[in-house]
């Protein structure tokens, strides 16, 4: 962990703090009894606001989680920091790809 990774991790954390509060509210709303997939999609379909909000959230989460995993690997597994860094980048790309695909699925389909 150096200053550059630290800045990215803390910055994405600070960015996500308010986003998570809203997400918890969304979770509570979306899981109330009787909500179907069609109900959800009718709200998200074609919405720039949803796309922007969750697009940013996914990007921030991908960066934040991969740096966190990098630290865990470097500290708890017998791997070098460089190896941990490469695995982390791979995971970050995976998360970003899956996440943006999910956003597209809800907004574009």
């Amino acid at each position: 962990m150096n200053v550059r990774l630290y800045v990215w991790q803390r910055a994405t954390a600070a960015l996500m703090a308010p986003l998570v509060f809203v997400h918890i509210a969304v979770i509570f709303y979306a899981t109330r009894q009787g909500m179907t997939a069609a109900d959800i999609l009718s709200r998200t379909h074609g919405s720039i606001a949803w796309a922007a909000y969750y697009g940013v959230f996914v990007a921030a989460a991908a960066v934040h989680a991969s740096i966190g995993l990098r630290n865990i690997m470097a500290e708890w597994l017998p791997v070098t920091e460089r190896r941990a860094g490469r695995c982390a980048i791979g995971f970050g790309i995976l998360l970003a790809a899956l996440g943006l695909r999910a956003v597209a699925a809800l907004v574009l389909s």
Partner: protein
Amino acid sequence: MPETLAELSVSLWRGAQQGRYETYVVPQRESQTVLDVVTFVQRHIDPTLSYRFACRVGVCGSCAMTVNGKPRWTCRTHVSKVADSGRLEIGPLENLPVIKDLTTDMERFFEKWQAAKGVFAPSQTRHDAIVQIRPDTPARRAADAAIECINCGVCYAGCDTVRWNASYLGPAALTRAWTLVNDERDAGNTARLQAVAAAGGCHACHTHQSCQELCPQALNPTAAIAGLKRRTVAAYLKGEIEA
């Protein structure tokens, strides 16, 4: 004759990195410290026991050991406060190589002190006027709050990140670097901030605050390290140091 209350069952680490705990029976006395107990074993039971102490009054930091799982100054730890049901387990400080029994090799601790640039870099010569340092500026207050470290190693022994990350400089080294960052006479801050911003530097700290909890001098390395984090981020964003 000092009054004997009962008997203590004391387990002491014997050996080096490999070894075992051996148990001794020691008379418990009033106002007895853990250092008294270790000293009793060495003087009356087993003279081959190795341990360190110097001042025995809580000003030198030499007698730090792991007592019932926690790193402490043994001369300032009263047996009555830590011996649950008459049992004590005493080992060498964690996170440092064991030389023998209760003594550890502190060389790595001091190497990291140097690596964090915990050394004053002068900006003037004897021919310049003496700089007036006011004690009440925020920078001097910050430095004074962190300056009383006597290198006992308790924070280093108690730190999870030191345990997990071999290159982590540790709370003591970083706290000293922080005092120099706040010293207006010091000229080495760019190099110092660069040193603590590298891998293993202040950013490796996870803010567990064990160092703050354990420091026998009531210093706050967590706060010092947080200060370094803020200064290095500012320097990095301004392009004064590199990642």
